[in-house]
């Protein structure tokens, strides 16, 4: 494993923040070493300074993508903390469907939902499963489910929808697993009916969000925690612009927008918190 020097640590931490928004604490040199050592070796670099130079100069951005893949944490679970999904099922979706259903029975109900850091897809598939369980006849609906993530690897795995038993056993009930997944060797693959409901696409949250359009519901859980306070404020301001006026924002259960973005006000339903524009 290649060791990192304090100077390299400083430079590469800033570089990673620039390309991904993720700000890694410089006290965690081991994290840089364990995550980036193999990227450096794979690129034939003997130091992190060399890796940094090479990545900056690479016009194909291949090395930049590899660094992002190595540094992002792809840890997510199906239905990770149940709160948001219960909120979606019992409060948000029924309210939005009431508000959005057109008077004419000929017209469809439009809903746009975004999982802003979809990682390997579990959150968005969980949302799709909730929708499928709640709305039996989807033919009267136009529901768009978009998942975005900065990591190519995460997007590839999310699109494939295949999870090994260790990735799937926590969080998913047996009945749900058997209903919506097919056993595939030692792994489970999401069924086509759910897969067809969602779209995944690579996206960097540091970029402007306007190209994505406006959403009725945005999930942005446990990703801003890796950003600096300044970048968190920027992100949630952009999210406020991307959310329709009566839309819903759900953030991680240990996160708060107090002191981050005053444009959102927290609201409570049972034990869960969601945010709406003030």
């Amino acid at each position: 494993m290649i060791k990192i020097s304090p100077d390299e640590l400083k430079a590469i931490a800033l570089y990673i923040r620039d390309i991904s928004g993720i700000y890694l604490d410089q006290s965690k040199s081991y994290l840089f070493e364990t995550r980036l050592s193999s990227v450096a070796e794979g690129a034939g670099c003997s130091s992190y300074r060399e890796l940094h130079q090479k990545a900056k100069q690479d016009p194909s951005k291949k090395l930049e993508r590899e660094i992002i893949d190595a540094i992002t944490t792809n840890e997510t679970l199906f239905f990770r903390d149940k709160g948001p999904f219960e909120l979606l099922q019992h409060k948000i979706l029924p309210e939005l469907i009431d508000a959005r259903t057109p008077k004419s029975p000929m017209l469809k109900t439009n809903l746009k939902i975004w999982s802003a850091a979809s990682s390997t897809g579990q959150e968005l598939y969980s949302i799709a499963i909730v929708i499928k369980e709640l709305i039996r006849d989807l033919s009267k609906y136009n529901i768009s489910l978009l998942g975005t993530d900065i990591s190519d690897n995460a997007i590839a795995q999310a699109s494939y929808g295949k999870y090994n038993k260790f990735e799937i056993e926590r969080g998913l009930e047996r009945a749900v697993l058997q209903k919506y997944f097919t056993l595939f060797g030692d792994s489970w693959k999401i069924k086509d009916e759910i897969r067809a409901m969602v779209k995944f696409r690579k996206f960097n949250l540091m970029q402007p969000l306007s190209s994505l359009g406006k959403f009725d519901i945005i999930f942005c859980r446990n990703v801003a925690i890796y950003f600096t306070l300044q970048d968190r404020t920027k992100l949630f301001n952009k999210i406020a612009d991307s959310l329709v006026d009566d839309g819903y924002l759900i953030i991680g259960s240990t996160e708060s927008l107090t002191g981050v973005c005053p444009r959102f006000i927290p609201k409570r339903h049972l034990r869960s918190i969601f945010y709406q524009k003030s």
Partner: protein
Amino acid sequence: MESLSILVVDDDPVMRRLLHQRLKTENYTVTVAEDGHKAAQLLKQHRFDVVLTDLVMPGDMGGIEVLELTKELSPTTEVVLITAHSSVDSAVAAMKKGAADYLEKPINFDELLLRIEKIANVKTILRNAHDIEEAMDVTEHRAAETIQTLEIEIIKLRNTVSAVELILRDTSRDEDTRVTESLNIIEQS
């Protein structure tokens, strides 16, 4: 589940090609070396997830030496040895030196793929565990910051309430003045 990179080391060209083709069809990234020295050269340049090496090879770099070098350069790379039945004892000795597994010749490819899939699973679990550890760390840190911010907010609000209460209870002044003053304090907070 990412594709593993595998280094195949075998002096037998037929075996090398067979292993290369079979592992490639399973979507692994495969590199081959015809002897221990070539393997050593590759190991110094690249990091592999798995090294699959013949135990007995001509020259001074056999499977054991490849194993030792791999573990020295990259402790997280797993080594699987291919042995003849007669050399099972040395394969067991190699396991003690850190080899993940060994396979007896003639190679059963289904068995080989199962062993490699097991290694891939363990690597996924390890990576997930590291990710969870890191996420917990950051979450705890941010949650602590949030709690501090909220505590400060509460203190500010409490101070506002006390100030307003003081004014409102002061019956010596007329009501309109007290209400205006209270509203000012609330607006400023």
